[in-house]
């Protein structure tokens, strides 16, 4: 085990206690990157080589100079006896959907490939102020539009550290891959429909989508503004809690950031979960999707191993004294995806308007006097398939003559999904749940090329995660073992608004209870490659 494999809380402790220097931690992380990451994503990658296929390519930009400056600052503070911050010397990767001053902030799109941000996102500045080392900008699906990272304009796209023939998931796939592979101890991701939780499940790490508004969106390049949530990716509940505590809270730059006090999530971790009520819902053990020919809804149970994973976790929670409540109805779950398709695309199409070749980013090299032609060429040349599809659909469903039929209706569905959660979490209601336990994803990580291009199927992979985004409630995915291919399986806990402390408490209890399980001793293949790591 190298320094970079240590949990963030231990690293920060060791740095603060002068057992190691921030510079040494950084050296370890950069060394790991050089062993496992391969070349960073770029917009003119040439052919993907067999060597590329053995690496994880988590980064678009490795900001080693920035991290070095920060490490030196931490070490200087320690030398002077000043407080270096709670995350002193902890290497962190940042999904490249966040603006960080002086770095390329690309959203994994050609249209922003040359954009250097003049300002830093609130969540990132909070990490910096806490002494974290910003290692680099992690790859993602273009503008976060995807579940595999393959839609990134920056190739090679990230690969799964447990098996590089599989995707890391997405859209925060670079983030989760970097954390799983020990390149970064923590990563800042975003979750609009499952974009933290799904890749966390695929990569065997912990990923949390906090309550909407818990973490400021200022500096997050928007996808669907009413659904986007920045959140932590880490290897343990403890590290997740530590990171969330730093990034959460009210922000004068974001009026949708909640003015609710941030609890000390670390203090919540050690509580007993005895008597907590955890629900299981049949609506989360099946996937509903429209038949492309008839348009009628079809249902299909999630694979047995996924349901088994949830039931196994429920047993663990049961052993810890939680009450497991079966057959909790979540009747509007199947409509989450269609409603999401409409709402997110309306917001996305509007959010993408600003990329017009006028002020920053890509502009067509073609000379023209015609403004509209410049817009069309610029956007045609620099947006990938996913942004184009989303613009088309978003424009269509928000047009004056269709808006009522689609957008207004989708908003109604959204409030019905919220009501499902209100009902089960209502302390005076029938179920009085503290959390709902579900599979995070219908499957484990799929093979590279397996689904890309079939955007409907990829989106249906979000069916179990998107309801929490509609409802604004927090959800957390955590690893519980492996499938028969050796790929990680994640399960999800969803709680009421601002219940992050309790969710982290439950996951921490689960981790402690399963600490000695053999599956916990397995390390990602990428780290075990012979001769690659000393």
């Amino acid at each position, binding site marked *: 085990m190298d320094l970079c494999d240590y949990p963030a809380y231990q690293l920060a402790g060791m740095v603060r206690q002068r057992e190691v220097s921030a510079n040494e931690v950084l050296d370890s992380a950069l060394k790991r990157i050089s062993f496992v990451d391969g070349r960073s994503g770029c917009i003119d990658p040439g052919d993907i080589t067999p060597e590329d296929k053995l690496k994880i390519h988590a980064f678009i930009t490795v900001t080693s100079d920035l991290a070095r400056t920060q490490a030196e600052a931490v070490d200087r503070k320690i030398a002077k006896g000043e407080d270096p911050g709670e995350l002193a010397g902890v290497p962190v990767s940042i999904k490249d959907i*966040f*603006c960080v001053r002086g770095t390329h*902030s690309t*959203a994994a799109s050609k249209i*922003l490939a040359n*954009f250097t*941000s*003049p*300002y830093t*996102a609130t969540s990132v500045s909070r990490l910096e102020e806490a002494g974290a080392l910003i290692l680099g900008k992690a790859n993602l699906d273009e503008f976060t539009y995807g579940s595999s990272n393959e839609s990134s304009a920056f190739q090679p796209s990230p690969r799964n550290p447990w098996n590089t023939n599989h995707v890391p998931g997405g859209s925060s796939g670079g983030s989760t891959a970097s954390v799983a592979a020990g390149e970064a101890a923590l990563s800042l991701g975003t979750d609009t429909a499952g974009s933290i939780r799904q890749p966390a499940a695929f990569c065997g790490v912990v990923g949390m989508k906090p309550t909407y508004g818990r973490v400021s*969106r*200022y*500096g*997050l*390049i*928007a996808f*669907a*503004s*009413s659904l986007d949530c920045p959140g932590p990716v880490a290897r343990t509940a403890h590290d997740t809690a530590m990171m969330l505590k730093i990034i959460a809270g009210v922000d*004068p*730059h*974001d*009026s*949708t950031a909640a003015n609710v006090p941030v609890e000390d999530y670390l203090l919540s971790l050690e509580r007993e979960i005895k008597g907590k009520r955890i629900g299981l819902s049949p609506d989360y053990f099946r996937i509903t999707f429209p038949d492309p020919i008839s348009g009628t809804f079809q249902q299909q149970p999630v694979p047995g191993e996924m349901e088994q994973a949830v039931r196994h976790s429920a047993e663990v929670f049961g052993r810890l004294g939680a009450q497991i409540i079966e057959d909790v109805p979540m009747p509007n779950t199947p409509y989450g995806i269609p409603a999401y398709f409409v709402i997110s695309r*309306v*917001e996305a*199409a*509007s959010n*993408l*308007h*600003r990329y*017009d070749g*006028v*002020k*920053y980013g890509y502009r067509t090299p073609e000379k023209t006097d015609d*403004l509209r032609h410049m*817009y069309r060429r610029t956007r045609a040349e620099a947006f990938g398939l996913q942004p184009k599809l989303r613009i088309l659909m978003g*424009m269509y469903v*928000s*047009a*004056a003559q269709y*808006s009522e039929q689609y*957008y207004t209706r989708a908003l109604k569905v959204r409030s019905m999904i919220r009501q499902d959660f209100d009902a089960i979490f209502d302390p005076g209601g029938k179920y009085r749940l503290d959390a709902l336990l579900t599979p995070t994803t219908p499957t484990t990580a799929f093979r590279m090329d397996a689904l890309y291009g079939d955007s409907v199927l990829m989106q249906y992979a979000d069916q179990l995660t998107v309801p929490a985004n509609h409802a604004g409630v927090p959800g957390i995915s955590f690893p519980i073992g492996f499938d028969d291919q050796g790929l990680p399986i994640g399960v999800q806990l969803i709680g009421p608004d601002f219940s992050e402390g309790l969710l982290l408490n439950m996951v921490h209890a689960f981790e402690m209870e399963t600490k000695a399980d053999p599956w916990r001793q397995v390390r990602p293949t990428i780290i075990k490659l012979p001769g690659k790591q000393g």
Partner: protein
Amino acid sequence: MTDYEAIIGLETHIQLNTQSKIFCACKTDSWYDPPNTNICPVCTGLPGVLPVLNQKAVEKALLLAFAMQAEIRPVSYFDRKNYFYPDLPKGYQITQYDMAIAKGGFIDLPIPDSSGLSTTSYVRHIGITKLHLEEDAGKTKNANDERQIDFNRCGVPLVEMVTGPDLRSADEAAQYLIRLRQLLRWLGVSEADMEKGHLRCDANVSIRPAGTDYLNTKTEIKNVNSIEAVRDAIDKEINRQVRETNAGHRIEAWTLEWDEDHSVLKKMRSKETEADYRYFREPDLLALQIEDAWINEVLSFQPELPLARRQRFINEYHLPEYDADILTNDRGISEYFEAAARSYQGDGKKVSNWIMNEILRILRERNIQENDLFLRPTDLVEIIRMVDKGVINSSTGKALIEKVQETQMKPAEIVKSENLAQVNDESTIQAACEEVLKSNPNEVASYKAGKLTLMGWFVGQVMRKTQGKADPSIVKSLLENLLK
């Protein structure tokens, strides 16, 4: 030949005079600043930025909404209006669409007759159909084959206020703008300078046969930068529409641009089908909640409105409409008048005369505001009282106003130190009169021969001899006696 009446609606954009912009901390007023100096990531629409609503802009909009008798929505929303234009950096404008801060509203507009004395000939009821908050876009300039964009104006807070099709002539439209400008300055919500674009106006114009009640196709006039130009442009457009209609042509829904240099309207474009702006709620801002406590706090700064004060001055101080109109043109002057009139407790019209003739002249000549005057209302009253009592004569009083402003001394001190008190001692005046007559025998002869107009000249000579301090009426009667 058919008689036509004009149907006019005005769409105004009012720039609120807040310190900072509506969604960021950049300075609002960039009139004297070079392009692209008051900008930041937020107002230039960089990736990842979010708007944060300036509460002061809301308060100013509330003041205006109340003054227009509009209903305030306790919960209103911001929406995105999506369109592409280089000076719109986000590709959408944050505005209010179907649930704006205010609903309805009106103003009863006194329309003066043509006497020029502000006598109200009738009152026109103007309905307000739209009053909402929004952000301004930037400015585009074409120069040297380039399109140049200045983002300074991006995010400047605006209220868009639209009237119903309730105005019936170019003069009424001009009156509306005059009263609106007066109100905006009165409330302190906008500098309302049309030349600087603080108040922008588009006019929708159509005509119909007098006595009918349907609406015909309208044209829209844009880019008019003064009230005079609005009047001129509307007049020209009404005449054009009458000519076209009489010639059997149909009026088409054109957008017309006012060419300031040549005072002509030019066709900008035919109005195609209504653009689809794909409005939807701005997800980056919360609903705007306006609680009663906030309204009450804002309204505690709401002054009496100009038209109400004008009417009250007529009733309470028995001023002619003309005086009331002028004295309420500016809020500061109206307050100055009222303070003086209350302190004087006599003929309001006399106070009005002093202010309209003397005070307004000083302000004009020195290009200062009422609150720059060292002469406060009580000082003015002191001067008027000295004149009333014959301590000084009225021309000394007028000169005194200037002297107070220059020396920053109190009127009574100046009278004393400069020995300005009127000479009322008849023997002194008698002696002066006799001396004047003695040294001007030719004039005396002419006067006695019947040239009575020379009396004014004799009075002037005596006043000069007494350094203006004699009471001219006493001088005149003494001279008349001596010349009998």
